[in-house]
């Protein structure tokens, strides 16, 4: 395992130290693993807290800043953070208008955020939670833990963050977060697995012509192992899965996301195919992100996330944002 790290056990604090040094706009509590806006809580604004395992950078810490999150709680690599972090973060960002927890749907994240929210409520804080569950590779039924939260997290954090920045009340911000999640879908494909530093080897092995379809972001294998195909076919496969679940129409926000080890060049090749697919269906990609936004360490592969836009969502997307990972309008 050749990783640009010091000791395996120091990966998360070392990452946070680096983020702190790189981004004066962030206040990073390395010991307690909380990343906040350096500007402190905004009085009268709903506070947005998210968090999850590390290894998905820039998610979540890279999305702390004006127009998006107020705090991020990074856990160990691929391991949900603990309630203490969420409780501290919730206190730190409460500007008097309540706090929204944005939780990706994984048993660990859900349970830990649940415990934190209960304890915060016990202490009198106003906390609402929204679950992000956009991954169509997982059947949402009583026989699973439900759909995973993946790429749509970026959309939820961005648009709910914009609404919060505009001064909307907690219930409205939570409702918007749910709306964005409802309108978003994701599908991921892996060409190779990433390596968790503490584990020292890839989470799964793939042959030279094998891929995993329907992967999540934690290095877990996907729903099926299949033969490798060209970009056009892979994109079609992913887009068909999204379209079957929630047919495309009108304006669409698209993210073509690299899992950590896929060149930007290839993501653009894929984006070209996504754009063509949407045209075919009579829909239009009016906004997009192409790059590494929700990664899975050094996994090679990609995911596609789409969100059906309307005028309000488009304007929330366009609202200025100033974070290490996403910036425009200021």
């Amino acid at each position, binding site marked *: 395992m050749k990783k640009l790290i010091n000791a395996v056990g120091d990966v998360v604090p070392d990452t946070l130290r680096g983020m702190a040094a790189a981004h004066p706009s962030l206040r990073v509590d390395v010991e307690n693993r909380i990343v906040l806006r350096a500007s402190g809580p905004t009085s009268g604004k709903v506070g947005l807290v998210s968090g999850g*395992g590390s290894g998905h950078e820039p998610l979540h810490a890279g999305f702390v800043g004006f127009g998006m999150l107020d705090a991020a709680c990074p*856990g*160990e*690599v*691929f*391991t*949900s*953070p*603990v*309630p*203490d972090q969420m409780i501290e973060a919730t206190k730190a960002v409460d500007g008097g208008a309540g706090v929204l927890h944005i939780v990706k749907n*994984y*048993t*660990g994240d859900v*349970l*830990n955020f*649940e*415990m934190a929210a209960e304890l915060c409520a016990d202490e009198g804080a106003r906390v609402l939670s929204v679950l992000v569950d956009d991954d169509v*590779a*997982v*059947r949402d039924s*009583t*026989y*699973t*833990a439900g759909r*995973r939260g993946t790429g749509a997290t970026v959309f939820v954090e961005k648009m709910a963050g914009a609404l919060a920045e505009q001064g909307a009340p907690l219930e409205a911000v939570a409702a918007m977060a749910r709306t964005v999640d409802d309108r978003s879908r994701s599908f991921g494909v892996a060409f190779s697995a990433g390596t*968790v530093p*503490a*584990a020292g080897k890839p*989470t*799964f092995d793939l042959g030279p012509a094998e891929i995993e379809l329907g992967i*999540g972001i*934690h*290095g*877990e*294998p996907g*729903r*099926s192992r299949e033969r490798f195909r060209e970009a056009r076919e892979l994109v079609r496969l992913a887009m068909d899965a999204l379209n079957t679940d929630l047919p495309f129409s009108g304006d669409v926000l698209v993210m073509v996301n690299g899992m950590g080890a896929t060149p930007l060049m290839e993501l653009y090749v894929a984006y070209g195919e996504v754009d063509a697919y949407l045209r075919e269906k009579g829909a239009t990609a009016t906004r997009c992100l192409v790059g590494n936004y929700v990664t899975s360490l050094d996994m090679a592969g990609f995911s596609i996330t789409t969100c059906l836009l309307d005028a309000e969502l488009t304007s929330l997307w366009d609202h200025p944002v100033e974070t290490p990972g996403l910036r425009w309008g200021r």
Partner: protein
Amino acid sequence: MDTAFFLRWIAVVTERVRADRDHLTDLDRAIGDADHGANLDRGFTAVEEALAAKPPETPADVLTTTGTTLIRKVGGASGPLYGTLFRTLGRSVGDVPEVSREELAEAFAQALAAVMKLGSAQEGDKTMIDALAPAVQEMRTSFDAAARAALDGARATTPLRARKGRASYLGDRSIGHQDPGATSMALMIDALRAA
């Protein structure tokens, strides 16, 4: 069973988790995200420190400190679940210097209920519950019987299709692998015999 017994139990669990760390992680690599061993090792190392820093005075103290520390340090699915298990055990045995096997068995029954409620898992979902539930049944008989039941329960998860936790994402591909959480649960129950 006195405070020393419970301290020995946790010490044995800590030691075995450390020894089995890579094995547990490998099981989690197959159907999860390759961190279960690391998670528990981190958790029980913190428990060891917490217990050393402020020596507990009662069995409940040992169990509650263990549970709270796991919740604070582990994260993941297993942190809140194991944390809740130990905290419920602590709350159930109450503020007494000694606990009988019957009392412990009753506490385990309550802990099982709490963990099942928190994770909304049933037996057969291919989780730690599949080791814990049969062990609770046998706890009144003997620790030996409970340990055997837990180990059998863990092994019996292999042919199951996961319905909870990360492994459920795999659908049918989760079949054929033993559940890491059930495996670590069996390890914990088995450690009661060595305490």
